[in-house]
């Protein structure tokens, strides 16, 4: 990465790490934590949805696997949540391989629907199987014990975001990233240049699933109470897509910006309209799709582009 690239990133992450030093309000801290976790989710979804152009509406499955793993392995085997997280990540990888090889055979809306179906199957299983305690949910242990357990967990989430960010940055300029973009635009063209779309999509999904599962584990250990409706809901999958699209799908900073905008505005709105957040998400999604499909980032890109690129000759 060139200096102009890593400096803003370094500053951003340094800022994030500094927050526990000066932000005392526990409620605000929780909001920041949610911003970071959702940023991870958005960045992870972006690999599959933004770069590879595959509309996955079942990503919450991996979130749930991460969350439930921490809870289940602790309850059944007494594992500490770090081991639970590792297990969750591995399980998510296996699930991604399975789900990916099934669903990536399908194109367009069939693919989206099949990802939705697989995530719903997981949610229904969690709801109905006894060892997940159904609708009652489960308790997950915290990663760190009190005092300051929450703060330490937050500090653990920042490196996760940094990892996701680095992964995206690398992808953006690597052969892998170009392959994904080619697949997004036109799979036939991608094959014509020697790219195997099935394998590349699977790789993207693997990376994505692992990040999402880790975020799920962190989420579980902070909120400590998880259930099918909190960690396996379709809404979360849609939120991931919204975050990435709002900020800018297929860009490095997009999902992070999207998470900040969405989480902050959702919290702010809660103060005025208790029940309106779905409506707001819906409106944002409609507005983004119709008027700003490139997301917030595209607003800046356009201005920068006009300033620095030579005008293309119209023939």
């Amino acid at each position, binding site marked *: 990465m060139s200096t102009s690239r890593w400096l803003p990133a370094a500053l951003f992450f340094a800022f994030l790490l500094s927050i526990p030093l000066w932000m005392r309000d526990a409620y605000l801290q929780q909001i920041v934590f949610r911003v970071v976790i959702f940023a991870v989710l958005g960045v992870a979804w972006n690999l599959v949805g933004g770069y590879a152009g595959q509309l996955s509406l079942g990503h919450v499955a991996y979130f749930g696997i991460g969350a439930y793993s921490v809870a289940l392995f602790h309850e059944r085997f007494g594992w500490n949540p770090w081991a639970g997280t590792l297990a969750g990540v591995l399980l998510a990888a296996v699930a991604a391989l399975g789900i990916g090889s099934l669903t990536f055979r399908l194109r367009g809306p069939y693919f989206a629907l099949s990802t939705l179906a697989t995530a719903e199957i997981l949610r229904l299983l969690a709801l109905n199987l006894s060892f997940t305690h159904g609708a009652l949910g489960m308790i997950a242990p915290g990663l760190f014990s009190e005092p300051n357990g929450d703060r330490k967990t937050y500090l653990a989430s920042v490196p996760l975001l940094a990892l996701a960010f680095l992964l995206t940055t690398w992808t953006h*300029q*690597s*052969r892998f990233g*170009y*392959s994904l*973009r*080619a697949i997004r*635009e*036109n799979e*036939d*063209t*991608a*094959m*014509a*240049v*020697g*790219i*195997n*779309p099935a394998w590349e999509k699977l790789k993207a999904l693997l990376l994505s699933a692992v990040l999402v599962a880790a975020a799920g584990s962190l989420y579980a250990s902070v909120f400590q109470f998880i259930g099918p409706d909190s960690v396996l809901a379709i809404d979360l999958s849609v939120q991931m897509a919204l975050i990435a699209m709002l900020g800018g799908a*297929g860009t490095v900073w997009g999902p992070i910006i999207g998470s900040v905008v969405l989480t902050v505005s959702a919290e702010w709105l809660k103060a005025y309209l208790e029940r309106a957040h779905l409506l707001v998400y819906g409106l944002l999604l409609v507005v983004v799709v119709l008027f700003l499909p490139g997301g917030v980032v595209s607003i800046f890109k356009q201005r920068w582009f006009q300033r620095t*690129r*030579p005008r*293309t000759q*119209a*023939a």
Partner: protein
Amino acid sequence: MAPLLQLKHVVKRFGGLLATNDISFDVAEGEIVFIIGPNGAGKTTLFNLISGYVVADSGEILYRGQDIVGMRPYQTTRLGIGRTFQIVKPLPSLTVRENVMLGSFLHARSRAEARRKADEVLGFLGLEARADSLAAGMPLAQRKLLEVARALATGAKLLLLDEVMAGLNPTESGEIVALLKRLRDFGVTAVGGVEHIMRVVMALATRVVVLDQGAKLAEGAPEAVVHDPRVIEAYLGSKFTQGGAAP
């Protein structure tokens, strides 16, 4: 020396339609072969069969002696078969150079190497001035050249050019013709598909294969084929004289 590409009794059906009816012919290295046939004659199907987008029902397709029937397109590309499409589709959100890099990434070991190779190909095709512009919004002729550039960048030794001159005016076609001539120097064997026997084809092609409704009608040097009574009959003369039979 063994031919670069050999088709032996290749057959392909789509439901009730016999798109490819027992086609056999060879292409030697360094040749420029044109496959001629109106739309629906089976040219694109043939290209799809060779490059792997469609699997032959029976017959053999040998590339450098290796049977490639059943290979997926990315596998044939890796072997050295490049292909352009009738409806060109550059990736609009990438620059011209990045589009070509998509091709050069195949055999490059680093991004820098991919970029170097892409620039080389762009230079060869005269597109280096546009390297940093977005591929979207380019005129058709340039987009066609970009398709060819991308295919060349993959290191293709056999280039399948489906209707590469369709939609171009005479000046633009002339550029393609010049390109085809230089391809031979670059070590690339070209197989092109066109709708009629044009002046250009007569001048360039070492050999010509005429298709009619999926079957091979005639094959040989352009001069000979043009006088073949079966070909004349199939084309009813009028399309045919456009090509200019008299040298």
